[in-house]
């Protein structure tokens, strides 16, 4: 079908590459099919036939266990953890009497505890998975069974079933669209769950099945589909339908994928092709790979080291044992004979090794892992509970969906953010406007006073209550009846392609293709110019309460090259007027030069708006006389019917009439950023986090948003734009960029000290515009052009203002990125990108998003965080260390794949700077202390080994060993790990620099680890040798010696518990009531439990186990024991205390400083105002004021995702229900032609010749060829030409030569043109200087590549 042979790869290498890839995938898929299984064959309504193939059913299972398998599977999984297996191994060792130096319960109790805690957690997780699976599987859908519709659960839907979908329903499986309730087998879907795009897409059934509208016909439908096996490519599908001995090609355009929602379509029928796990949605989701934090990995390394250390200790002691047994033990046999099985010292040493492995194993206590999990769980709850991360608008609290990554949040260095829905709300609001030189919408009131929202209802009962506007002057002006203002809003109410739906009187719902248009029409509506309804030939509005019907003479539709749209209407009085709105850059050229003053004022306003990050449009009108109209109409008709270069001709015609216009004003639309986005970004960059925006949007939009969220600023040294299409050009551009950056920064350094270069900013801007011009539409020879546009910046005058913020930004488009991500370019790209402060990648595919993340992960060893809200972000979210989902409007795929989710981008700052930072801090402190306390605890055995004949005699009571980690010392450190705060949350937001230690990994690394184990070993030395020195000769005050083993054990244990408690008290910086309870409670519990264990009662019952009876009271009543404990504590703690104090004084950390200041301030009871020391202030202050309006570069224009073609759709009336059409006559010429035209555009969009030559043929015979019969794509999607259409299109090739003439750029397009596939390439490659057909950019497979024609025109102005 898609023949690519001989495609001119020189011209279209990028797209060619992609297409080749696609093709090979398709072929590869087929090959694989043959190898692994037969090609997917699905026969409609024939379950028996389909069952042969055993396709997956529509039941999805994401859960891991069921009740029966839970225990074995879960235990099996748990014992795959090295640590658990290790402890199991220890347990087995302990059962060997010759080795067992400890009772079995010292290991089994903690192990059982750990296993059961983990098991409970796993069980809970799985329970929720079961629940959600059930919920999905039990959704109902209507299945056509034996001719009647029956409700079936989703899980019972089979491949080959025909299901009926109703409006707003989720699609249950991947289905082939058969027919719909709408004309021409059209249906609309929203694919938010799949790819994150909220705009509606059109799908169309193939014409033969579109007629099968009622269940009876469908029930007898027995077509067979042969198609590719399941895969995860969302944007492609190839298959063939065999029905009634004919073949019909199927493309993605005919498919409804699971996860889509049906919109604006009453119902449709579809044939299930892929079900359940085979659906593209499920194939894309896959199993989440388990993410580990860097601390986790470090911890595992350290644990391995400790194992090594353990083996060394065991080895040393075993050698000691061998020597001792040989030298001493051998002689001591008179009192302690060697066991018969152990009759030589080497074997004894071998056993002793294992015995020591058992008793020293507490250096890696099993409770480490479980404690870490508990702490993380706690931190996750704190995230869930945080009210400041609760979004009241959407009633969503933040959610930590994984509990294993919290501390990594404190180490993030790179943030990859999606744009739409993440940075922006994807809501456009009419924000400001300039009418006849008067700007409205500025908030001029005194600061701090909340401006009142205008109330429109008294003026206009049809007003949309959700519309916000604050400037009363505008309303006044409307009321007064200012003619300019009226005309302004009239234009807005007429010049658009919005469809309206009036459900009941006065309740208008606008369906706009792009939110921008909707915002404009809504604005007009509220100011009294209400767009009510339209027919193909009329527009009905209510103007200031009076219904007016205009006859719509023409829509001069929008496209990316024209960057404007116009309508020509005749008002009831019969006057003909052309209304035009468009990018100021294009419009200004077409204005009557008479009113220069107005133009310049408006231009100033536009500049202001643009500087505020608003999207601007200029509005103009022109009166046409009847003659003019007639003449133009004629030429238009002619152009429309032209056989070749129709697009060009039409454009020329349009251009002819869009001249000599009068400026009305300008609008400014805010692509509403989410609340607090600029502040968040500023704050995060202050915290040294680099933010990359990866968006599927067009470059212009992305850059615009980059400016409005202050990622890009006009202060930036340079915004580098990479938009090459070949490896060479991308490489070249990257190199040039680096050279420039070097040169500029060098220059800046040289230029330091020179003050006040007034022109610097100007020159910079000028140059930037030139740079930005790279990718513009007229860049047919862009590579060659740009140097001339932008003369190299003179080295010295490089701006001074920038020396403060010598920052670069990189904007790279998806097709360039594809090259930049190739292995040999990676490094180059990375070095350039990482030198930039902000990086924006636009037009990137989901896969590329993930690739970029992987690239950073691979080369930078930095922690990455990806944030997004759509399904197109899923791959990125999954591949980043941390994935954050914005639970916004765009479905829940991202959230489901994410590790953390919340409703607003701005919560990211709290998540990272507060929760992440705390988590990291707590985890590090926890780990340091934990290793410390266990070394202090365990190493005592090592020293004791030298005095007990290396016999693996423990120093402590076995109960103490069992309980030390799980009772005596666990809670205080848990409390610290849970609650500790070095500085309060608002301080961490005030001083983003506090985040740095996490990024540099300062708080817990190998060095810190060595410090804490050294401290632990030191403590163990003290704890052994001080009692040793004191007690060996000591007696109780009644003369009984104190040096018996049990007294020694009690003394050492008590000293140990006290020392580690004092240590945790020192480490705890934030003593909440829990810390108090746990620290004192642990000490208390130690004494209580010890006395209980040494009590008579227990001894009487189990004399074997509790033979320490009486030791506690005998020992602890002795003053000398307490003196020993005090001495040991002092020796352990005093150096630590001194060291910390000196460090605090000599080398304070920022957090110490902040904390100190905080405390001093608290102490002095100063009002907690802003009087805080100015020293650190600079580091933390958040950018004041949203808008540094000075000298903003203009970023205006039709940046929004507007698509061509709807104008035609409207004038044809095809998309209107008959009811809304009323009696409106179909405009004869368009009545059938629009869809063909669309298809033509789609199929052959670029080479104007093709469409030109195709269109007349088709539109002339409009009726004869079934208009929709073969169109594989209507508004978007694939380029495949229907198979049987090939004969029809074949003649088209005859005119290739015309085409070539028409299109001077590339003769090589000739062969392309014939093969519709090539059209997208041509388009994407941006060769054509006048690309016309750009329908549904997003949806087409090479869609992202289309953008380049649209870029940055305004910069070049």
């Amino acid at each position, binding site marked *: 079908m898609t023949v690519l042979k001989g495609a001119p790869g020189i011209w279209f290498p990028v797209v060619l590459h992609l297409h080749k890839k696609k093709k090979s995938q398709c072929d590869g898929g087929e090959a694989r099919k043959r190898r692994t299984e037969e090609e997917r064959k699905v026969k409609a309504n024939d379950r028996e036939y389909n069952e042969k193939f055993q396709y997956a059913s529509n039941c999805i299972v994401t859960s891991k266990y069921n009740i029966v398998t839970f225990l074995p599977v879960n235990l099996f999984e748990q014992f795959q953890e090295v640590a658990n297996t290790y402890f199991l191994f220890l347990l087995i060792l302990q059962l060997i009497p010759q080795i067992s130096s400890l009772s079995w319960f010292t290991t089994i109790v903690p192990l059982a505890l750990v296993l059961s805690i983990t098991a409970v957690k796993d069980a809970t997780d799985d329970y929720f998975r079961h629940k959600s699976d059930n919920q999905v599987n039990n959704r109902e859908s209507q299945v056509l069974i034996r001719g009647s519709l029956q409700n079936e659960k989703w899980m019972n839907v089979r491949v080959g079933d025909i299901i009926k979908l109703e409006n707003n329903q989720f699609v249950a499986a991947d289905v082939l669209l058969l027919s719909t309730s709408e004309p021409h087998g059209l249906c609309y879907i929203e694919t938010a769950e799949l790819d994150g795009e909220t705009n509606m897409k059109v799908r169309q059934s193939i014409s033969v099945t579109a007629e099968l509208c009622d269940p009876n016909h469908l029930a007898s439908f027995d077509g067979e589909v042969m198609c590719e096996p399941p895969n995860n490519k969302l944007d492609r599908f190839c298959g063939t339908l065999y029905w009634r001995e004919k073949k019909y090609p199927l493309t993605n355009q005919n498919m409804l994928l699971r996860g889509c929602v049906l919109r604006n379509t009453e119902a449709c029928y579809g044939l299930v092709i892929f079900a359940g796990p085979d659906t593209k949605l499920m194939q894309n989701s896959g199993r989440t790979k388990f993410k580990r934090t860097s601390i986790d990995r470090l911890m595992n390394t350290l644990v391995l080291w400790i194992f090594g250390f353990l083996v060394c200790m065991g080895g040393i002691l075993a050698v000691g044992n061998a020597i001792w047994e040989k030298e001493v033990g051998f002689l001591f046999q008179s009192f*302690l004979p060697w066991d018969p099985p152990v009759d030589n010292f080497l074997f004894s040493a071998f056993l002793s090794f294992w015995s020591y492995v058992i008793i020293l194993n507490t250096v890696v206590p099993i409770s480490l892992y479980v404690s870490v999990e508990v702490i993380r769980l706690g931190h996750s709850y704190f995230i869930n509970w945080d009210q400041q991360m609760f979004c009241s608008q959407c009633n969503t609290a933040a959610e930590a969906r994984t509990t294993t990554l919290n501390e990594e949040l404190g180490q993030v260095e790179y943030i990859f953010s999606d744009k739409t829905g993440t940075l922006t709300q994807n809501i456009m609001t009419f924000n400001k406007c300039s009418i006849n030189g008067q700007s409205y919408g500025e908030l001029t009131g005194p600061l701090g006073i909340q401006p009142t929202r205008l109330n429109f209802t008294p003026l206009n009962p049809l007003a949309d209550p959700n519309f916000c506007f604050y400037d009363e002057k505008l309303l006044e002006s409307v009321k007064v009846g200012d003619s300019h203002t009226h005309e302004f809003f009239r234009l807005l109410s007429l010049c658009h392609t919005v469809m309206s739906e009036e459900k009941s009187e006065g309740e208008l719902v606008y369906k706009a293709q792009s939110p921008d248009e909707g915002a404009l029409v809504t604005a007009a509506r509220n100011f009294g110019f209400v767009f009510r309804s339209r027919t193909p030939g009329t527009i009905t509005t209510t103007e200031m309460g009076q219904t007016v019907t205009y006859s719509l003479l023409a829509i001069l539709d929008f496209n990316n090259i024209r960057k404007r749209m116009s309508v020509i209407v005749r008002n009831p009085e019969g006057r003909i007027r052309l209304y035009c709105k468009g990018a100021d850059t294009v419009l200004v050229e077409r204005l009557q030069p008479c009113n220069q003053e107005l133009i310049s004022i408006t231009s100033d306003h536009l500049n202001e708006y643009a500087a505020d990050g608003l999207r601007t449009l200029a509005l103009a009108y022109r009166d046409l006389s009847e003659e003019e109209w007639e003449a133009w109409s004629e030429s238009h008709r002619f152009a429309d019917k032209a056989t070749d270069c129709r697009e060009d001709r039409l454009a020329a015609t349009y251009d002819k009439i869009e001249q000599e216009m009068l400026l009305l004003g300008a609008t400014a639309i805010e692509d509403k950023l989410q609340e607090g986005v600029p502040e968040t970004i500023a704050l995060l960059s202050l915290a040294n986090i680099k933010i990359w925006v990866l968006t599927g949007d067009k470059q212009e939009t992305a850059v615009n948003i980059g400016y409005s969220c202050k990622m890009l600023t006009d202060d930036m040294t340079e915004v580098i734009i990479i938009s090459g299409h070949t490896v060479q050009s991308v490489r070249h551009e990257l190199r040039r960029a680096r050279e420039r950056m070097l040169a500029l920064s060098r220059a800046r350094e040289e230029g330091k000290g020179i003050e006040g270069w007034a022109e610097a900013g100007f020159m910079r801007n000028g140059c930037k515009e030139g740079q930005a011009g790279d990718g513009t539409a007229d860049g047919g020879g862009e590579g060659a052009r740009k140097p001339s546009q932008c003369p190299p910046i003179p080295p010295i005058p490089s701006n001074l203002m920038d020396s403060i913020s010598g920052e670069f930004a990189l904007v790279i488009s998806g097709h360039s990125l594809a090259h930049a991500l190739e292995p040999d370019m990676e490094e180059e790209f990375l070095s350039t990108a990482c030198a930039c402060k902000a990086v924006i990648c636009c037009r990137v595919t989901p896969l590329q998003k993930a690739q970029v993340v992987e690239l950073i992960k691979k080369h930078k060893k930095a922690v990455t965080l990806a944030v997004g809200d759509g399904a197109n972000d899923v791959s990125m979210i999954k591949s980043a260390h941390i994935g954050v989902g914005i639970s916004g409007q765009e479905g829940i795929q991202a959230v489901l794949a994410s590790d953390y989710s919340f409703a607003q981008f701005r919560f990211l700052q709290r998540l990272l700077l507060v929760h992440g930072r705390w988590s990291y801090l707590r985890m590090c402190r926890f780990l340091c202390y934990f290793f410390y306390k266990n070394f202090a605890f365990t190493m005592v055995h090592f020293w004791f080994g030298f005095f007990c004949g290396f016999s693996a005699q423990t120093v402590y009571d076995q109960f103490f060993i069992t309980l030390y980690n799980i009772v005596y010392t666990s809670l205080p450190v848990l409390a610290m790990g849970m609650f500790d*705060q070095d500085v309060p949350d608002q301080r961490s937001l005030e001083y983003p620099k506090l985040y740095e230690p996490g990024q540099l990994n300062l708080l817990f690394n190998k060095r810190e680890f060595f410090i804490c184990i050294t401290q632990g070993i030191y403590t163990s030395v003290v704890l052994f040798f001080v009692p040793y020195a004191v007690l060996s000769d000591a007696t109780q005050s009644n003369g009984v*010696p104190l040096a018996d083993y049990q007294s020694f054990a009690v003394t050492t244990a008590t000293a140990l518990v006290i020392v580690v408690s004092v240590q945790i008290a020192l480490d705890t910086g934030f003593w909440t009531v829990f810390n108090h309870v746990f620290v004192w409670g642990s000490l208390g519990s130690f004494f209580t439990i010890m006395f209980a264990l040494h009590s008579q009662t227990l001894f009487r019952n189990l004399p074997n186990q509790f033979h320490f009876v009486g030791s506690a009271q005998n020992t602890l009543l002795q003053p000398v024991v307490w003196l020993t404990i005090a001495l040991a504590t002092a020796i352990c703690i005093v150096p630590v205390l001194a060291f910390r104090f000196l460090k605090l004084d000599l080398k304070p950390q920022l957090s110490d400083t902040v904390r100190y200041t905080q405390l001093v301030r608290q102490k002095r009871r100063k009002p907690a105002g802003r009087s805080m020391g100015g020293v650190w202030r600079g580091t933390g202050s958040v950018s004041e004021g949203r808008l540094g309006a000075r000298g903003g570069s203009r970023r205006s224009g039709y940046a929004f995702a507007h698509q061509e073609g709807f104008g035609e759709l409207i004038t044809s009336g095809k998309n209107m229900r008959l009811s809304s059409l009323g009696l409106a006559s179909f405009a004869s010429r368009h009545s059938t032609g629009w869809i063909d035209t669309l298809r033509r555009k789609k199929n052959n969009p670029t080479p104007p010749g093709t469409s030109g030559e195709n269109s007349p043929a088709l539109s002339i015979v409009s009726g004869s060829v079934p208009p929709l019969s073969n169109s594989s794509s209507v508004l978007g999607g694939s380029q495949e030409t229907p198979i049987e259409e090939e004969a029809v299109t074949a003649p088209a090739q005859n005119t290739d030569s015309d085409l070539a003439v028409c299109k001077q750029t590339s003769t090589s397009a000739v062969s392309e043109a014939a093969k519709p596939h090539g059209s997208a390439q041509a388009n994407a490659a941006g060769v054509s200087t006048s690309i016309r057909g750009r329908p549904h950019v997003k949806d087409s497979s090479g869609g992202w590549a289309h953008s380049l024609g649209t870029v940055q025109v305004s910069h070049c102005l």
Partner: protein
Amino acid sequence: MKEEGNYANRPSNTAFTQQRLPAWQPMLSAGVVIPGFLLIGLAFIGIGVGLLITSRSIQVLELDYTGTETSSPCYQCTMSNQSNCVCKLSFSIGTLFKGPVFFYYGLTNYFQNQRKYGVSKDFNQLIGDVSYFKSPSSDCQPYQRVNGKPIVPCGAIANSMFNDTFKLYQIINGKEELVPFDGKGIAWWTDYNIKYRNPDYTPLKNAFNDTEKPVFWTKPAYELDTSDASNNGFINQDFLVWMRRAALPNFRKLYRRITEGNYKDGLPAGNYSLEISYNYPVISFEGTKKVTFSNVSWMGGQNEFLGIAYLVIGSMCVVMSVVMLIVYAKFRFPEED
């Protein structure tokens, strides 16, 4: 604009969930640390001085009687073929040895803390549970059975019980006067009353039917002190003292107190003779035996180390506080005005 109903999922606003619990946030500020160090230092020096003085006031007399050297009076007892060997050790005391005087025996290089030695006993036997008399714990190996009969008390510890006996005579005018020894209450109260119990048999001997005495013992457990039933069997004080095994290879154990008669106030200056019934072999494993006379204070016996350590730590704290003061004065934390 915000609707009230929208707060359904709002997390609760408690100090705990919002991590705003009131908390004490200590900081190592100079105002606390420096005086703290000074105080601790002074306190430690004080304690150290006190300990040292107390310790110095305690009198200790230690006599080695291993007999490894030929000059030693017990040298002849080290010959292997000697049994019931008695040797006499003479010594003199210059000043009054203030009472109460404690008399210890000491062993060195003796590994009571060896793991296998330590576990080699049966607690159930020792609380008088006769059912364990018949089948001693396997921990007692190789002193579990002898000639097929169970050993009671079994195990290496009991088997190796120290069996030298001592008699102290003061030589007054060439005449030996026996210094009375008090053997009561030399073991822990808990050991005597709880941990070790005799089986409830009268006579005690009957409980030991069909059992063997430990191999090294000369007499069975029920004959350890035939004169005093409350000091016989498992609750024999010497047995209890021995069974409380030492933590370190060099240890001493209390043998008797000197609290009675003329010696209530201590051992007067003069010449003494210690008669040792030398039974316990230590030469084979290079051990030594010694006896110690000592009196005690509130803090127990003589303990130089503790006092010195306190003094050292105390002075270090004081020095540190001075160093800290200097550092603080020089690099004082930048403070807000």
